[in-house]
C-alpha cells in the first residue's frame, strides 16, 4: 500500500465536515440529497427553495408529511433533517435563488453548490453564479425513471449552457389555427381558446382560421372564396373572441357552432391546405344532439382514463362553458380566469374542446388523464429515481472534494437495463466549449433580427432574458457614444421600450454590450439585420441549434416533449399562471420517453433521433464515443443517452 500521507486526506476530512455547501431546491431530489449529505457527515448546509409543500409532493419528498402542506419546503426539510441529525448546521431560505440578495459573494461562501432544481431558468442562473464565483456545481435532474448527474467546474468542464438547448419552442400559429396534425396541437388550441374566452387575451394565442398561412397561394379565386365565407361569419372576425362570446351570453350552442362548424367550414375553403391532408369534418350541434347518445358502456378503468364519444364531449363542452361562465361572473366585471390543470371546470373545458377538434381533424380522442398530462406539462416523477440520483450526487461530491475532478463523471440513469439501454451510464466530463456564450472568456453571440421590427422591450424580454437567461440586463450600444439602450435601474430607460432598435441607429453589424451585474456576466451581441426570417420567428441566434427541423409540425411537438420538464421551454402555449409543481426536471432523449404516459411522441424514434442529433449532436456523439468503442460500433442505435436540460 502506498505510504504517502498526502494532503488529500486532510482536504477530504476538512471538506466534508467543515465545508459549506448550498443545495438549491428542496423538492424530489433536494429532500433525498439533504438526507444523504448529513449522513455523509456534511455539517454546514444551506438550502433554498421558493416552493411550499403540496399534497402531490408527499409521494416522493419523504421529509414532508400531510401536516406540512402549505409550509415552506426549505424550512420543513431542514426541521425534518435535524430530527435525525440534530448536530447538523442547516440554514433554510424560503426564497428564489434568482433574488439579487444571493449575489456572487454569497455563492463564493460555499465550497460546492448542488442543484436540485426544476426549471431551466434557475439552472442557467445558478450556472452563471457558480462560474462567476468559480465554485464547482453539481447539476442533476430526473423525469420518470430517467435521471442525470453532472459536474461543472469553471474552465475545466462544460458548463450547463455549453451545449445549446432547445429553447422556447412554440408551435407555428398556422399549425394551431389551421392544420393541427397531432393531439398536442388541439390541446394547445383549446388552452388558447380558454384564455381567449375567459382569460387574458393574447394576440399570439389566436384560435380562429389564419388566412396568412404561408401554405396558401394567393390566387384570386381562393381569396374570393375566403371573402365570401368570411362574410358568412358576419362580424365575428372584427370583434374579439371574448367580446363576441360575451355578447352571446356565453351560449354554449352558439360557441360550439362557431368553433366546430363555421370556423371549420371556413378552413375548408382554403382548399390548398387539404390537397395533401385529410380535410376536417365540421360538427353541427343539432346533429350531434340527434345522435342517439350511445349508452356510456360501463367502461373498466378509472373515470379520467375513459374516452367519451363526440356526443359526450359536446355535452362536456356545454356544461363546462356554463360552469366557467358562472365562475367568471362571480368574480365581477372585468375579471379573468386563469387556466389551471387542477381546476376541474377548466380541465373539462380543455378536454372537451381539444377532443372535439381532434375528432374534426380525424385524430383519435384522448382521455382526460392524458390531456391533463399534456396540457399541464406534468413531469412524471417517482421516488426511486430521485433516490438514485441524489445518492450519485453525493458520490460525485466526495470525488470533487477530494480534489479528484478527473474521476468525476456525468452519469445517466435509464429505465431499462439491457445491453443497449444500460441502467447507469457514466461518461467522462467534456471540456468547456470554446464557443459557449456563457463560459467563454469573452462571450460573444450573433443574433439575426429585423431592426425595424424589433422593439427594445422584445430585445430585453425575449432575447436577453428568455433566450440568454439574464435577470436584469444593462445594454449599451457600441456606437462610439456609449448610448444606453436598456438600464436595469428602474425608471431610466422605460421610455425606450416601445421603440424599435432602428430608432437608436442600430443596423446591420451593430454591436451591443450587455451586462448582467448580478450574474457578473458580460455578453457582446452582434446584430445581423434580416428581413426574411420565417413567420413566427422574431430572431435567430447564429450557430444555434436550428429551431426548426425538416418537418415543422412534427418537430415542434417533439421539441416540446424533448424539452418536457422545462417550465420555460416546454410550455408551448398559454402557460398557466399558477406555478406548475415540477421539482425534478430534465430533457429526455427520444426513445426514453418519460413515461407510459401519453406524451404521444414515442414510436417515432427515427425522426426524433434526427432532432436529437441536430440539437445536441456534438454532445451525444462525444458521449457515445466515451462508451466502449466496440459497443458503440455495433450499436448504431445507441440511444441510451439523455441530455439534461
Amino acid at each position, binding site marked *: 500500500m502506498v505510504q504517502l500521507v498526502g494532503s488529500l486526506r486532510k482536504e477530504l476530512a476538512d471538506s466534508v465536515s467543515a465545508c459549506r455547501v448550498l443545495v438549491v431546491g428542496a423538492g424530489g431530489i433536494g429532500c433525498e440529497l439533504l438526507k444523504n449529505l448529513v449522513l455523509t457527515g456534511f455539517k454546514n448546509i444551506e438550502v433554498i427553495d421558493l416552493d411550499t409543500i403540496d399534497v402531490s409532493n*408527499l409521494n416522493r419528498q*419523504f421529509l414532508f408529511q400531510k401536516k406540512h402542506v402549505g409550509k415552506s419546503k426549505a424550512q420543513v426539510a431542514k426541521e425534518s433533517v435535524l430530527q435525525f441529525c440534530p448536530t447538523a448546521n442547516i440554514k433554510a431560505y424560503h426564497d428564489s435563488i434568482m433574488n439579487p440578495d444571493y449575489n456572487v459573494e454569497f455563492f463564493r461562501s460555499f465550497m460546492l453548490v448542488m442543484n436540485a432544481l426544476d426549471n431551466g431558468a434557475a439552472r442557467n442562473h445558478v450556472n452563471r453564479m457558480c462560474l462567476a464565483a468559480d465554485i464547482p456545481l453539481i447539476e442533476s435532474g430526473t423525469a420518470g425513471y430517467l435521471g442525470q448527474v453532472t459536474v461543472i467546474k469553471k474552465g475545466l468542464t462544460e458548463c450547463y449552457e455549453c451545449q445549446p438547448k432547445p429553447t422556447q419552442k412554440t408551435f407555428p400559429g398556422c399549425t394551431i389555427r389551421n392544420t393541427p396534425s397531432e393531439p398536442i396541437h388541439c390541446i394547445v388550441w383549446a388552452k388558447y381558446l380558454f384564455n381567449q374566452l375567459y382569460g387574458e387575451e393574447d394576440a399570439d394565442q389566436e384560435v380562429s382560421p389564419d388566412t396568412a398561412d404561408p401554405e396558401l397561394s394567393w390566387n384570386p379565386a381562393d381569396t374570393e372564396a375566403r371573402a365570401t365565407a368570411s362574410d358568412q361569419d358576419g362580424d365575428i372576425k372584427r370583434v374579439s373572441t371574448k367580446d363576441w362570446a360575451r355578447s352571446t351570453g356565453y351560449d354554449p350552442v352558439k360557441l360550439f357552432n362557431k368553433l366546430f362548424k363555421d370556423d371549420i367550414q371556413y378552413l375548408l375553403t382554403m382548399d390548398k391546405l387539404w390537397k395533401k391532408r385529410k380535410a376536417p369534418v365540421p360538427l353541427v350541434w343539432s346533429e350531434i344532439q340527434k345522435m342517439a347518445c350511445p349508452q356510456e358502456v360501463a367502461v373498466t378503468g378509472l373515470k379520467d382514463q375513459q374516452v367519451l364519444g363526440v356526443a359526450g364531449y359536446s355535452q362536456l363542452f356545454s356544461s363546462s362553458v356554463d360552469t366557467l361562465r358562472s365562475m367568471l361572473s362571480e368574480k365581477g366585471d372585468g375579471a379573468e380566469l386563469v387556466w389551471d390543470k387542477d381546476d376541474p371546470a377548466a380541465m373539462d373545458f380543455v378536454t372537451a374542446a381539444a377532443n372535439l377538434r381532434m375528432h374534426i381533424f380525424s385524430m383519435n380522442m384522448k382521455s382526460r388523464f392524458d390531456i391533463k398530462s399534456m396540457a399541464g406539462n406534468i413531469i412524471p416523477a417517482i421516488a*426511486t429515481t430521485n433516490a438514485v440520483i*441524489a445518492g450519485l450526487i453525493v458520490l460525485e461530491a466526495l470525488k470533487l472534494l*477530494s480534489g479528484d475532478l478527473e474521476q468525476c463523471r456525468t452519469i445517466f440513469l435509464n429505465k431499462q437495463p439491457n445491453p443497449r439501454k444500460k441502467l447507469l451510464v457514466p461518461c467522462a466530463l467534456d471540456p468547456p466549449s470554446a464557443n459557449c456564450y456563457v463560459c467563454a472568456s469573452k462571450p460573444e453571440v450573433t443574433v439575426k433580427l429585423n431592426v425595424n421590427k424589433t422593439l427594445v422591450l422584445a430585445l430585453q424580454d425575449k432575447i436577453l432574458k428568455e433566450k440568454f437567461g439574464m435577470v436584469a440586463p444593462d445594454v449599451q450600444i457600441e456606437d462610439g457614444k456609449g448610448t444606453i439602450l436598456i438600464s436595469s435601474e428602474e425608471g431610466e430607460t422605460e421610455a425606450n421600450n416601445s421603440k424599435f432598435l432602428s430608432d437608436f441607429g442600430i443596423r446591420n453589424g451593430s454591436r451591443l454590450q450587455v451586462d448582467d451585474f448580478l450574474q457578473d456576466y458580460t455578453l457582446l451581441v452582434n446584430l445581423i439585420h434580416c428581413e426574411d426570417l420565417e413567420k413566427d420567428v422574431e430572431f435567430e441566434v447564429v450557430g444555434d441549434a436550428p429551431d426548426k427541423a425538416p418537418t415543422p409540425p412534427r418537430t415542434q411537438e417533439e421539441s416540446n416533449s424533448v424539452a418536457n420538464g422545462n417550465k420555460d421551454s416546454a410550455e408551448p402555449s398559454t402557460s398557466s399562471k399558477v406555478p406548475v409543481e415540477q421539482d425534478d426536471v430534465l430533457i429526455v432523449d427520444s426513445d426514453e420517453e418519460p413515461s407510459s404516459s401519453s406524451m404521444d411522441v414515442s414510436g417515432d424514434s427515427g425522426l426524433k433521433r434526427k432532432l436529437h442529433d441536430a440539437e445536441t449532436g456534438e454532445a451525444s456523439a462525444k458521449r457515445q464515443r466515451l462508451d466502449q468503442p466496440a459497443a458503440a460500433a455495433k450499436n448504431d442505435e445507441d440511444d441510451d443517452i439523455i441530455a439534461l436540460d
Partner: protein
Amino acid sequence: MAADSMEIDDSLYSRQRYVLGDVAMQQMAKSSVFLSGMGGVGVEIAKNIVLAGVKAVTLHDSKQCETWDLGCNFFIRQDDVINHRNRVDAVHARVAELNPYVHVDTSNFSLDLSTDLSFLKRYQCVILTEARLNVQKKVNKFCHSQLPPIRYIGCDVFGICARVFCDFGKNFEVSDPTGEESKEIFIQDVTVANPGVVTCMDGRAHGLQTGQSVLFREVNGMDQINGSARQVTVLSPYSFGIGDTSNLQPYAHGGFFLLVKTPQTYNFETMEQQLRDPQVLTPDFSKPEAPLQIHAAMLALDAFQEQHNRPPNIGCCQDAEVLVKLTEEVNHTLTNRAPLWAELSRCLSRTARGCLPPLAAAVGGITSQEVLKALTGKFAPLQQWLYLDAIEVVKPLQSLLAEEFIPRGDRYDGLRACIGEPM
C-alpha cells in the same frame, strides 16, 4: 373492490401515475412485500416502496439499534439507541407514516438456515439485505420454486461495493417492456400486392422492427384490413411490407396503424445457478471487467465471513490480503472470469464493515425500482446482477493510517470505515 376499478388517490400519486400507468399502480396496490434488514440500504428500500404505494410491507430485522446505525439509517434516533430498541421497532412508525395507504408491519425472528420459509408464501416479492450468502441462496431457492414464483431480490452493500441480484422466476412475463405508448401513425398508401406495402403519411418514420405486428384501423377502400393485426417486414424508415394484400380492395384514403405490444418473457436462474457464470450488467464501459471482478471479490467476502464468522476488520491489511487470496480462489471457480483486481479486494476488505450512505441510497433506489418491476411486470427487469463500486472515492485515501478508519463509538463510524475520519 375489483382491482381494475380501484381508485387511485390522484392528489397523492398524480406524478407517479404518469411514470407507471394505472394498471401497474393497481398491480402494486395488490402486492405484499417482505423486506429483511433495516440497515442503511434496507431503510432506503423501505422508504421508496412505501412511498410508491404497495399494499403491504413486512419489515424484518433482528438487531438492536446501535450508535453506528445513526450514521446510516435516517429513521433511527439517539433515543432508540439509548433505549436499546430493536431496529425494526424503531423505524416501524416512521416508515408507516410515509404513506397511509400502505400497511406496514414488522417481524424480528432470526432468519437463518433452519428457518421454516413457508411464511413467505403470502408475499409477491421478497428482498433480503444484510443476509449471509447461504441464507440468501436458501430463501431464493424457496422463492424460485413456488408457483407462481415469489420474486426474489438480494441486495448487499459492503463499504464501497454493492450488488443487486434479481430472480423473478422461470417465466417472468413483462407486459410492457418499454413502457412507451403505441403511437398511431397515419397511412399514405397501401399497395395491392404481395407483399403489400404500407407507406406512412407525411414521411413519418414508423419506428417498427421486422417481426413486430401492427393493427390497422379506419382504412377506407381496403376495408378488410381494419381490425387485423399483421406482421411487419421493414422496407425503409417510412414503409413496410405486411404480407399478401393482392386479394384485397384497393386502398382509397385514411386510416392509421399502431404497434401491437407483445409481452416478453424473461427467464431467471436461481442465485445458486448464477454464481459461476453470472449474467451481469456492465454499467461502465470504461471498466468493462469491473462487474465480474466485483462479483468475485464480493463472493470472496462471503467466503471470508463463512470462514471467520466475521467480516474483515476495518482498515486491516492482513484481512485485506486474505481477501485478495480468497478472491483469487473464487475467480478460479468462475466459468466467465476477469483478471484479478487486487486493489478492489483490498479496498472492499478494509471498508466492508462500513457504510457509505450515498452508495446505499443509490443502490436502494435501484433495488426499489426492480421491486416495482417485479410487482407490475412493467419495464424490462434487471438480469440478473448489478454491481456498483465507489472505489474512486476511497482510492486517494489508501495512504491514510489505519487508525483514521477505526470506530470511535459515534454515529459516523460506518462512514469513517469508508472514508476515514470525517471530523
